[in-house]
């Protein structure tokens, strides 16, 4: 089941890349249809996922040997956290692929790369083999590189190059850390379940610290955290809108997901020792992202920096959850659940915001906020969706962002009260910057040249409606999502102390 969800988009990408007969329309609808399959499969998996006490951590597990000599195998399976993020990713891919994009006459290649990226992204979240995880983690860079470079605007090639080189550095730090972790096991295995059970580096201070550093560098670049976030703004600004949505919604999650899956779960003692440092870095990212976002005049750049801010919340929650091996279980579980909901919510909300920014670009080829104003008149649908997404992003109660941030902060207060207090400032700044952005775009006098600004088209509206409807549903009635995530958070928080 999970294997099909990973492999099908990859195969379809290959077909699109080779089959020269596909035109713009057929390529697009083929891609939409293919990308809907993993979403359907993951929904089935979700419905069949057991959340009760005593349910196995990893479900829907499948295994096949790949390189047994090295202890590497094709191992897939999900827990609640992985399933939530993977399903959100699958949905976002359908949205991004359905989004009417300017493919510059190379529709086939464009949709092939998107499908390729879908396959490898789902791979990152669904595999249970550490080397396979790295393989997909690294391949996501290749897909994104070609999407940004091939269909971006502005200095797209420079941005793509910076993105690839920067994040490959993170990947390699990750690879070295993975190897150092695995080589301290006997017998050797890349099986994540085994590694979580064995806690290989629990006894070694020095090596454990270095390995953790490798993981942190790798995931911090991907997340991204201050000060290794500088690849993100150019990559976002110059990428085509659907690629931006995927980059923010899916690829950034690989950093935080990896943090939970590997260092948090596999070396919990070492993680706990350095959790405060991670928390501090997260708070700096929260504030830095918010403050710098505030100063941006460029619409897309502003959203990009809020991503750094929001991912900071997620990391703060993870740091709080992993800060100790026992005690404060309730608070730490809240923090971890909140962090996961933040990943899902941020994917939906920021994905929607980046798609919206794409609508602006397609109409005017301009991201400068000060060139806009009064759009509420000619574009009511655009106004409504943007406002809803922005409110969700700034954490308005009743929307998904609030559910996430509330839990993160409640959980963190019990563990790192000061960090939580400082982090809260970030929320205030974010609120200010989004309100100011909305005001700039939609209120005030309408410039003459925007008088004929077309409102959202049918497909655009449909895609945004689906994403934002979920944001509202999670905000109003989050129980179905929380039940899924909680079942795993309980095991991780409760179980990490007993080994």
């Amino acid at each position, binding site marked *: 089941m999970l294997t099909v969800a990973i492999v099908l988009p990859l195969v379809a990408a290959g077909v699109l890349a080779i089959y020269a007969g596909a035109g713009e329309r057929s390529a697009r609808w083929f891609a939409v249809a293919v990308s809907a399959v993993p979403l359907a499969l993951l929904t089935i998996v979700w419905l069949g996922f057991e959340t009760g006490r005593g349910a196995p951590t990893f479900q829907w597990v499948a295994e096949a*040997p790949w390189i047994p000599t090295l202890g590497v195998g094709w191992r897939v399976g999900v827990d609640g956290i992985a399933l939530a993020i993977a399903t959100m990713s699958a949905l976002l891919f359908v949205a991004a692929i359905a989004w009417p994009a300017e493919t510059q006459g190379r529709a086939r290649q464009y949709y092939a790369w998107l499908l390729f990226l879908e396959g490898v992204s789902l791979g990152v979240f669904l595999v249970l083999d550490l080397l396979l995880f790295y393989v997909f983690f690294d391949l996501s860079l290749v897909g994104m590189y070609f999407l940004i470079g091939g269909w971006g605007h502005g200095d797209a090639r420079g941005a793509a190059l910076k993105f*690839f080189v920067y994040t*490959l550095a993170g990947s*390699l730090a990750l690879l070295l850390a993975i190897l150092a972790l695995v080589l301290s096991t006997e017998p050797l295995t890349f099986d994540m379940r085994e590694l979580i059970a064995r806690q290989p580096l629990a006894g070694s201070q020095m090596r454990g610290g270095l390995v953790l550093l490798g993981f942190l560098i790798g995931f911090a670049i991907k997340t991204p955290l201050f000060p290794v976030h500088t690849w993100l703004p150019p990559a976002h600004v110059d990428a085509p809108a659907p690629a931006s949505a995927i980059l923010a919604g899916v690829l950034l999650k690989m950093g935080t997901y990896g943090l939970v899956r590997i260092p948090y779960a596999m070396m919990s003692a070492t993680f706990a020792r350095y959790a405060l440092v991670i928390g501090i870095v997260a708070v700096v990212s929260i504030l830095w992202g918010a403050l710098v976002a505030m100063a941006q005049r460029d619409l897309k750049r502003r959203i990009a920096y809020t991503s750094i801010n929001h991912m900071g919340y997620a990391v703060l929650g993870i740091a709080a959850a992993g800060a100790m091996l026992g005690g404060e279980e309730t608070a730490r579980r809240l923090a971890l659940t909140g962090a996961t909901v933040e990943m899902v919510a941020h994917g939906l909300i920021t994905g929607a915001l980046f798609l919206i920014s794409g609508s602006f670009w397609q109409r005017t080829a301009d991201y400068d906020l000060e060139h806009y104003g009064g759009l509420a008149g000619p574009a009511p649908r655009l106004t409504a969706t943007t406002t809803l997404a922005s409110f969700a992003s700034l954490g308005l109660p009743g929307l998904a962002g609030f559910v996430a941030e509330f839990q993160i902060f409640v959980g963190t207060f019990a563990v790192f009260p000061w960090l939580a207090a400082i982090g809260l400032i970030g929320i205030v700044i974010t609120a200010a910057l989004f309100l100011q952005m909305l005001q700039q775009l939609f209120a005030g006098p309408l410039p003459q040249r925007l008088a004929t600004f077309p409102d959202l088209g049918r497909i655009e509206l449909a895609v945004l409606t689906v994403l934002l409807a979920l944001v509202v549903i999670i905000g109003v009635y989050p129980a179905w999502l929380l039940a899924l995530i909680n079942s795993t958070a309980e095991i991780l928080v409760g179980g990490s102390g007993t080994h």
Partner: protein
Amino acid sequence: MSMPIGDVAPEIAVILTAVIVLLAAAFTPQRLHWLGAPIALAGLGIAAVLCAGQLAGPPRISFSGVWAVDGAGVWARLLIVAATALVVVLTPGWFMTDRRHGEYYAMLLLSTVGAMFIAGAADLLQLVMGVLLSSVTGYTLAAYHRDWALSVEAGMKYFLIGALANALLVLAVTLLFGLYGATGYGEIAAAIGSAPAPAPQGIALAGLALAVVGIGFKLAAVPAHTWMADVAEGAPAPSAAFLTVVPKIGAAIALARLLTLFPPEVIAWRPLIATLSVATMTLGNLAALWQSDLRRLLGWSSVSQSGYALMAIAVVGLTEQALPALVFFLAGYAAANVAAFAAVTHLRGRTNIDDYRGLATVRPGIAAALTLALLSLVGIPPLAGFVGKLLLFWATIDAGYAWLAAVAAANTVASLFYYLRVLGPMYFHTETHTVPSLGRWALGGTIAAGAAIIGLGVGAQALLAPLASTSLLP
């Protein structure tokens, strides 16, 4: 004592093929010289089968201690044969109008034998013979276009540096022979182990260092690396593919074999090789960064790849993963580098990076092969180069040389930059222009090498399983 002819049967097969090709070239008109290619392929096929047969037997030293038939050596010779076969496939299109087309195959095969001798040598003099055979034929292959200044220059530089390096190697042999009274590896190892008085450290170190430089020349390792970029740029493209790959495979194994004779407590060669490794990969990468000529860039990248190979040699014997890492890395490197040069060959030697703009639009297949090759050289999964680098990192970390793995990782990031300088414009420029190309042979070679890159990566188990128990004598 009977002569175990079977142990050198692959080499004999290749030499006989060379003779047959030479005769055929002498007695057929020029337009039929391409027949050398199928003949050479058949001979190489036989040699490969004979090599594979040797894998079954136990590791042994034969011919009175000058020839090692061990896992590492046999696998290296298999690789040499396979890589040569790919180069042979590239040749007919390139040399179709050359008057000396037929002789080229003979030269190629003799050079192959030289590389095979290097890989299997278990005696210093045997090693020197292999190096000299490989070098002399190598100069000729590099300068095969004698009317073309760049080709002649490449051959000339190769020759000058080679003459110096080979002289140093002979000097090293003299020193080591004087010190230990023998040239056979087994006898040297015994002499080192049983010497009542320790041999003079200085002379032993000097001898070994000179030998490392001499063998390093074939590997294009610092400090005898400078010929590589010129050969890659100026030699006929098939020769460049051959010379950047085949001699290296032999030299890497020979270096590992020679070094393991010396216990690290007698001569601390591991730090020395690790330093050479860092110097080689870093220098190659830095020099490649701003090249505007693809073939030159590939040449420098090939230097840096030798640096990675040296990582495994630095830790050989410390971890059982070192030898599989070395052989697998060489295999992945061979596939990728041959694929890259195959693409260049197929595009008639097109070499300016700017001329590759928009290639993906005009020739998506060739662009894809070149992309696979370059990404494999970076080490992007699941390609062959990834598994190779993974094993290298694995071996170095396991052996306690994690810092070396970290340096290699940093170098890999730097290398991505120049590979992307080629790849980016290929895909992101959409202007189209006509791109002339060679015929089916070169195309076939490109596809085969590209398939090898993927096959070795995804199907790594097929090669890794037998490599896991590979041995290195003596």
